[in-house]
């Protein structure tokens, strides 16, 4: 999560009823689990609190030090035991009390285990559902959305933000229940045993709350500072490690060292500041608890002397007094969790609620073949009125090959994006077989095309997966066949694991030419009616160059193709060449026609020619063979 977003969290509400209501809908499939969990939490608090009470009764009834008469609960229990004739002798009584205690421990273990597993798994299932929903929505959102939202931020939605919610579901809600029940339990038991002593003991509660709140606030503030400091150190290190050559070139070691020293010292001091809160908090809580115990000794002791409190109950008070600070302190911590969760859920819901504008209309038409493709007076802008395409019209018949040429930024690649309906145009029509593409089923439209892009995107996975894209409908045989036809099989065979060879992130380790061949194989494996080829311009060695030449021919054979062309050979053999300039079609015709006029095409051609001559000179091949 970015620092900016973290910062947003801190201003967020800890409880937003609207968000919570929506979050609770995710619990609906797990209603039973939730109810069972809550019931188990109650059980577990009861079992947890039973121990000291059992020992208290055991002491009063059986150990009976100083032969004091059992009073209070112990007295009640004795009366009840005597009435039912179950009063045992002291040794047997101690055994029974110990056994009952052991049973509550065993029961407590089972209940707590079950509850924790149930609750945490439920949290996981809810997160699973949420992640799935977010990811599926991301697969539908318009490409435009991705232009505007950096990938890094979107990943956070699926990962970190969802985890913040998990924290709330598992550690938050149920733990709050648990803490409250334990607290209520202690209060109830102590009041039941002796309400006066309970009141005296609880007089220290405000101090516990006060100290806890003071600590949480201070600790949170200093923690935030420490985090900001360490973030500054990390940013500095990150920058200076990657820019170490600049530091060394400019002899800046000393100056940069001094800057780092300042950051480092600030981090140290922020940490030392935060130690203060911890160093005070633990002893302070210890002291307050000790005051509680001293109060029990003084007031409770007095009651024992007067005979209004049993010794066993006094011992139990000591035990409970040591336990009841924990849930109070815990509760004060939950605030942060809730706050973070509210902020995260708000961001998640905002993403899920982002509408999708490019989608299949109702009563859409299916297409599986292409008779014609037509751009009719197309105007398009990514933003407002900054036209990238202006009044563009052209028509491609089945089996034809058109080449689009133009200088950088002429709008060539945009044509591809529009054909695939990554964006909707503002004016005009794009027609396939005479039907506006906005009336077609989006998937069936995209299946008409295979696109070979300039910067071929490799996914991590195997080489084979990158050809089939993991599509199960493409059998390995077809993958191999496709690779063989574009002669990509040769270099694949040289890889240690062949088609199973792993592809690292972004295809590191593959040359540009190899990536090109893989992209040809991918296009061929999908075997679409129309090929869109965005040729690469980068230099490749002769051998690969000629492989790519041949691959291109194989790909285009018998297929309608639209080529954003850089290679002279591809341009020359096109049925129609469209010359784009500043978003308009300036010239159109065959190579010969266009060469005969002294226009853009001739200049572009000459430029390409010179560039390719340079490429060829590297490898020593003849220019003549190109033209």
């Amino acid at each position, binding site marked *: 999560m970015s620092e900016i977003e973290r910062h947003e969290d801190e201003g967020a509400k800890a409880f937003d009823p609207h968000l919570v209501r929506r979050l609770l809908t995710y619990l609906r499939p797990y209603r039973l689990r939730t109810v069972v969990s809550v019931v188990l939490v109650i059980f577990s608090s009861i079992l947890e609190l039973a*121990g000291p009470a059992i020992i208290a009764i055991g002491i009063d009834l*059986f150990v009976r030090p*100083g032969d*004091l008469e059992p009073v209070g609960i112990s007295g009640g229990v004795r009366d009840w035991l005597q009435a039912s004739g179950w009063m045992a002798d002291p*040794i047997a009584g*101690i055994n029974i*009390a110990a056994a009952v205690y052991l049973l509550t*421990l*065993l029961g*407590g273990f089972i209940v*707590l285990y079950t509850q*924790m*597993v149930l609750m*945490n798994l439920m949290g*996981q299932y809810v997160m699973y559902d949420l*992640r*799935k929903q977010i*990811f599926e929505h991301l*697969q539908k959102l318009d490409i435009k959305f*991705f232009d505007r939202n950096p990938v890094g931020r979107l990943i956070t939605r*699926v990962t970190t933000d969802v985890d913040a919610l998990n924290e709330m579901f598992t550690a938050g809600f149920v733990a709050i229940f648990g803490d409250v029940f334990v607290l209520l339990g202690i209060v109830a038991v102590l009041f039941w045993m002796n309400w006066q002593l309970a009141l005296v003991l609880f007089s220290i509660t405000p101090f516990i709350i006060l100290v806890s709140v003071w600590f949480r606030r201070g600790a949170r503030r200093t923690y935030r500072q420490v985090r900001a400091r360490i973030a500054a150190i*990390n940013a500095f*290190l990150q920058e200076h490690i990657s*820019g*170490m*050559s600049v530091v*060394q*070139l*400019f*002899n*800046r070691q000393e100056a940069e*060292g001094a800057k780092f020293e300042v950051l*480092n010292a600030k981090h140290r001091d922020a940490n*030392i500041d935060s*130690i203060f809160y*911890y*160093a005070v908090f*633990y002893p302070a809580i210890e*002291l307050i608890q*000790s*005051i509680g115990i*001293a109060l029990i*000794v*003084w007031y409770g002791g007095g009651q*024992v002397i007067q005979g209004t409190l049993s010794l066993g109950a*006094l*011992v139990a008070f000591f035990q409970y007094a040591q336990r009841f600070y924990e849930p109070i302190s815990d509760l004060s911590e939950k605030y942060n969790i809730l706050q973070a969760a509210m902020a995260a859920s708000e961001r998640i819901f905002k993403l899920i609620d982002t509408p999708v504008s490019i989608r299949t209309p109702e009563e859409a038409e299916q297409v599986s073949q292409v008779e014609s493709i037509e751009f009719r007076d197309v105007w398009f802008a990514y933003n407002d009125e900054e036209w990238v395409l202006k009044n563009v019209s052209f028509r491609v018949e089945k089996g034809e090959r058109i080449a689009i040429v133009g*200088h950088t930024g002429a709008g060539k690649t945009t044509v591809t*994006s529009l054909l*695939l309906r990554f964006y909707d145009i503002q004016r005009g029509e794009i027609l396939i077989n005479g039907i506006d593409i906005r009336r077609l089923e989006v998937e069936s439209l995209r299946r008409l095309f*295979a696109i070979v892009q300039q910067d071929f*995107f490799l*996914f*991590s996975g195997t080489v084979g997966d990158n050809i089939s*894209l993991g*599509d199960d409908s493409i059998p390995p045989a077809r993958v191999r066949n496709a690779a063989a036809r574009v002669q990509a099989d040769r270099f694949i065979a040289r890889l240690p694991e062949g088609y199973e060879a792993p592809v690292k*992130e972004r295809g590191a380790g593959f040359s540009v030419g190899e990536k090109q061949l893989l992209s040809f194989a991918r296009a061929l494996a999908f075997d679409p009616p129309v090929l869109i080829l965005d040729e690469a311009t980068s*230099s490749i060695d002769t051998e690969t160059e000629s492989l790519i030449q041949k691959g291109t021919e194989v790909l285009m054979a018998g297929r309608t193709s639209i080529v954003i062309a850089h290679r002279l050979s591809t341009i020359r053999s096109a049925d129609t060449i469209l010359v784009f300039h*500043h978003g308009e079609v300036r010239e159109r015709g065959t190579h010969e026609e266009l060469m005969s006029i002294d226009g853009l095409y001739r*200049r572009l051609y000459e430029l390409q020619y010179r560039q390719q001559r340079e490429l060829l000179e590297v490898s020593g091949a003849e220019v003549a063979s190109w033209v």
Partner: protein
Amino acid sequence: MSPIRRLLHYFARHRWSLALGALCVVGSAAFSLTKPLIVGTAVDALAVSSSRRDLVWYGLLFVGAAAMQGIFLYLQRWIIIGTSRRIEYDMRGDLYEHLQSLPLAFYNEQRTGDLMSRATNDLSSVRMLIGPAVMHSFSSLLIVFGAFVMMLRIETGLALISLIAVPIVAGLVKYFGERIHDRFRMVQDHFGDISARVQENLAGVRVVRAFTQERNEIETFRKMNREYVERNRSLIKLTATFYPALHAMIGVMFVVVFFVGGRRILGGTMSIGEFVAFQFYLARMIWPLIALGWVINLFQRGMASMKRLVEVWDVAPERPGEQLCEPQEFRGALELRRLTFAYPGGPPVLREIDLNVEPGQTVGIVGRTGSGKSTLLALLARLWEPPEQSVFLDGCAIEAIPTARLRDIIAVVPQETFLFSDTIGENIRFGRAGSSEKEIESMAELAGLRDDVTGFPSGFSTVIGERGITLSGGQKQRTAIARALIRNPVILMLDDALSAVDTATEERILDSLRAVRRGRTVLIVSHRASSVKDADQIVVLDQGAIVERGTHEELIGLDGYYADLYRRQALEEEIEEIA
């Protein structure tokens, strides 16, 4: 130096505060152990019925002991944890200083991410070892031992039985602690995989859509998502066993005390006060026992991290070099004699380069990508070590001049512009510390940056990078040029430093540079003929060798690579101009 010795070296620097901290640990343990005794005595006094006045005294005594314990606790944490932060500070400072002294070859082999993780994660687990691990192990051992001695005094048999709990609880914590840590890492690893997958899916969104692979992607994601739940399930089962088990274990200890203690009281060998005191001691021991198991893991992780840090420390720093040759004055005469160079383990990148540059000359270097242009500049700046006796500066072999001295008189504008996320002004001042605002502005003027900067909200104080504005490629390059110019170097090297600015701006910058160029040697590497056409000499590199050399006119006459480059650019401009 071995990890332990290096660690001890840092401890030694702070030995007095550590010793004081240890004293405080002893103090807090001692007072903490007297408290149960007070309660026990008070309860016994009750059994033989005493007065309420006595009870007040017991209560006050108890609070007094607690207060003393509190003061020592406070000091112990303040001193020991504080010292651990100071040691962390020392180590981090030393580490960074060391990193700065390492040669560039080291950074070519190391991934930034790995170094970062050493400087952050590893350092932090070493800090955990120095602070919390040391403090808690010492105080835990003291308290466990002290409580045990006190329990022995109360009731030997019961104390011995309770002793069984020590290995059980500590073992439980260590066993589960380790496994929970491992499983947690497995969960985190998979979390990383999921992030990477989503990252790819989103970055490749156009490919996914174009090939209609959305369903496929959803299915893959579903599987990973499912696997994540499964891995969490095993983590959840562990934690759901651990905490309740620990809870139950502690409970069992109390049952045993009651079971045995009750009998002893009945038998008259133990008083109720001793019973209560015993319970208190037992309660005292629990947290230290848990801490011990945890501390063992901290020690293991901390030592492993220390080892990784020492690996970096053991890399030898770059030798600064001795002053073996001192020219009377650096004038910028460069001579390359049969310079041949290859990167470690690679084929030669430069072959037999001979070049003579007079002081004040401007040299243009052109050639295709990978022809060795940038390597040539890197050797002159000694970012890589050229072979001996092949590069001479003002009559001195370059290896005979200390690196720092050499870099003082040169300024490089690297191909990949690297700016720091600081203000624009500071980025220019980076070239020469202590430069005045006026100097910065005039350098920006020369670099053609000034008009851009005055358009920014806070001018030269505008912060760039993630926290500020994003500069365009051209603006970045021009900032880097200003940064180099402010050094007032004898030799200025521009490594394709104008590639991201349009030709008109390039023209302007070159014009203004012409004035500055006077009296200094300038080397310009470029892909564009326009950048070098006015140079005193132009060399064309191809596969590491000089294939053409001469002035612009001479090379045009040669009708080779350079002439073609020149015509191509003219053509490109012509196309641009067609509206």
